[in-house]
């Protein structure tokens, strides 16, 4: 009996142990997902996203395998892969979590020439019209769902456009009224802008030129004419990729900067460009959205994060993909990092060369040009909770948002944004002292100061009688003491004089 019980216990223990091992060994290392704390140190976090599946040429049933695909685009439940090496666009349809191959677009009926030559980007508008940046044919073609040509956007004949350069469109976005914004190779004046009817209307959002006083002095006084001709001229750098949000603002990423520019946020690797071309990205965190804050000295992929693509979710949360270390960085509309995950490698969930990112709802697609694969990420409960909490706050449901943030904290006690979220909702409920506590834990000075002012007001109003009494006492008591001393001295003086006389 005893032995039986003992074996049963052993068995149960063994089962528990294997379960524990199985739970720990699910292919995700503990440092796959992380975030930065107030001091800029990496804090491991639960996974916000996990790989749902990986789409390869074979899983899609393609006859010719994809070759160096450069871009993705997603609209509704359609995913478009720009298969650059094979001069075609692949349409993939998602139904009930399954991906099936749709059309393969490799020609435009009515265009001259009909086929593509290294297309590098694709965009599809609400009506199903497809725009393709046909790089080596020096054009952007717009076609309807039946692949009939609707419009061609070609090299501007305007004088502002340097005619000696060939027109190589690289990335395109189209706004709701059909204006086309083109990021073209070799053009550093910003994005090329076309009206819907194909007329060129100028450039927008050029990268500002960096020119320090020292550069100026060095160039003017310490270099000869010949040397100056040899040196790189000061020109704005080109953007790396662009993306348009639902309000029509263009998010652009920039990868040409030196490490030192990141220190004081001069590099601005992510920008939100408005209609007049200035950067209006909100940065309310201690650290600007620059991806990794530090990197391991001497490692193979040393260097700052280089965002090769960016996508903006419907709730204004933006996600950028870093090519240096194959990571994805999510930021909320305030510029606070939500999570970061990913790595380089051949494993599932790792990338060799991540070049493009797209989203359907909260699901993410990342294109790897070397593996010719699309990794599909779906949010975990934890990831969904973060989204739910920020959506609830945006909608004005502060209490609901605080409850969701509390659930987030149960999974990740290092999550600063959760403390701020709870604090903000407590402040709305006029629980200032508790709010202060939460803001203090998140090192949120502005909000703490705000809560403290209300708190101080309440405390002062409650104890105003005491405060007045103490101040009065401090003023009056010395006065009385002085008068008494003076009187006593006078009396003594009088006494002494009387004795003398």
């Amino acid at each position, binding site marked *: 009996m005893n032995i039986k019980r003992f074996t049963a216990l052993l068995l149960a223990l063994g089962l528990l142990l294997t379960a524990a091992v199985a739970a720990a060994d699910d292919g995700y290392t503990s440092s796959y997902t992380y975030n930065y704390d107030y001091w800029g140190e990496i804090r491991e976090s639960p996974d916000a996203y996990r790989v749902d599946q990986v789409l390869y040429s074979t899983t899609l049933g393609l006859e010719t395998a994809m070759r160096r695909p450069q871009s993705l685009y997603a609209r509704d439940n359609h995913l478009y892969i720009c298969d650059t090496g094979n001069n075609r666009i692949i349409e993939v349809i998602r139904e009930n979590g399954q991906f099936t191959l749709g059309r393969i677009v490799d020609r435009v009926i009515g265009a001259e020439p009909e086929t593509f030559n290294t297309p590098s980007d694709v965009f599809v508008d609400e009506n199903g019209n497809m725009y393709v940046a046909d790089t080596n044919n020096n054009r952007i073609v717009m076609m309807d769902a039946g692949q009939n040509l609707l419009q061609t956007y070609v090299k501007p004949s305007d004088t502002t456009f340097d005619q000696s350069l060939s027109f190589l469109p690289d990335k395109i976005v189209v706004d709701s009224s059909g204006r086309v914004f083109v990021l073209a190779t070799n053009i550093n004046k910003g994005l090329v802008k076309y009206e819907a009817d194909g007329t060129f209307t100028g450039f927008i959002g050029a990268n500002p030129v960096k020119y320090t006083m020292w550069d100026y002095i060095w160039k003017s006084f310490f270099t000869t004419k010949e040397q100056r001709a040899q040196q790189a001229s000061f020109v704005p750098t080109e953007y790396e990729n662009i993306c348009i949000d639902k309000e029509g603002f263009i998010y652009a990423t920039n990868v040409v900067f030196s490490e030192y520019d990141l220190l004081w946020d001069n590099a601005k690797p992510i920008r939100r460009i408005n209609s007049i071309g200035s950067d209006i990205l909100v940065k309310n965190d201690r650290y600007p959205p620059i991806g990794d804050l530090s990197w391991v000295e001497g490692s193979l992929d040393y260097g700052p994060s280089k965002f090769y693509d960016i996508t903006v979710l419907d709730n204004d949360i933006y996600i950028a993909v870093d090519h240096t270390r194959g990571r994805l960085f999510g930021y909320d509309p305030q510029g606070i990092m939500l999570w970061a995950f990913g790595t380089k490698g051949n494993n599932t969930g790792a990338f060799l060369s991540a070049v493009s990112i797209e989203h359907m709802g909260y699901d993410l697609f990342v294109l790897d040009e070397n593996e010719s694969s699309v990794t599909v990420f779906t949010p975990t409960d934890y990831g969904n909770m973060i989204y739910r909490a920020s959506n609830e706050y945006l909608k004005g449901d502060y209490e609901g948002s605080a409850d969701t943030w509390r659930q987030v904290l149960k999974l990740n006690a290092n999550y600063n944004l959760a403390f701020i979220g709870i604090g903000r909702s407590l402040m709305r409920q006029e629980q200032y002292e508790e709010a202060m506590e939460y803001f203090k834990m998140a*090192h949120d*000075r502005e909000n*703490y*100061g*705000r809560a*403290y*002012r209300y708190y*101080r007001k309440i405390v002062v109003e409650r104890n105003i009688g005491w405060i007045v009494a103490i101040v009065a006492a401090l003023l009056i008591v010395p006065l009385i003491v002085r008068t008494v001393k003076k009187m006593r001295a006078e009396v003594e003086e009088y006494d002494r004089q009387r004795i003398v006389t």
Partner: protein
Amino acid sequence: MTVNELSLNDSRPAQTGWQRYLATLRYGLYVILHPFDGFWDLVHEKRGSLAAAHTFLVLFLLTRVLKLMYTNFQFISAPLQYINIYEQCASLLFPFLVLCLANWALSTLFDGKGRFKDIYMAMCYALVPYILIQLPLILISNFISFDEASYYTVLMSVSIIWCLFLAFVGLMQVHDYSPGKTIIFIFFTIFGALVILFLILVFFSLLSDAIGYFVSLYREIVFRLY
């Protein structure tokens, strides 16, 4: 008070050691408000004491540590988990002493009148505004909000500027210099401090080389003997 009055006070009947210490401490208040008279008398009329100077220096270090620990987080971002009190104190004390030393060493070249003791004393007395302003400021920081940070910053800047001004006047009076000469002298002092740092570095690297040499010699002999 004028100089005459002060010297009259000085000729009062003999003070006990403790009374004199308190008097020299209180004299710190006079110095910061009347720096020109104050620093002159501090050295030439023996109105200050080394004990008081030490006290000010210790209080300065204490203020610094308390400031890191108890200033409200809205106004300071001190990663307390990484801060080492001894390191903090050393990082203030070491430059302070090196600058005093460089100043003293160069005063011979510049025809300065001050002895090391005088320089040290003047510099310590110049720290008094820092203590007087920053200590209450720690308390105040816990009763104001982030929007009122300007009051905090202004007071902090005042304390530092006041200290720098006192140090300047102190050097001028101790060495009996003109203001222009003092400015030049300060530049040379900073340069001298750098030279001292360099010498210290060289000394320690040579020392470690020398020790390394004897250690390897010992090892070699031990290996041969076995």
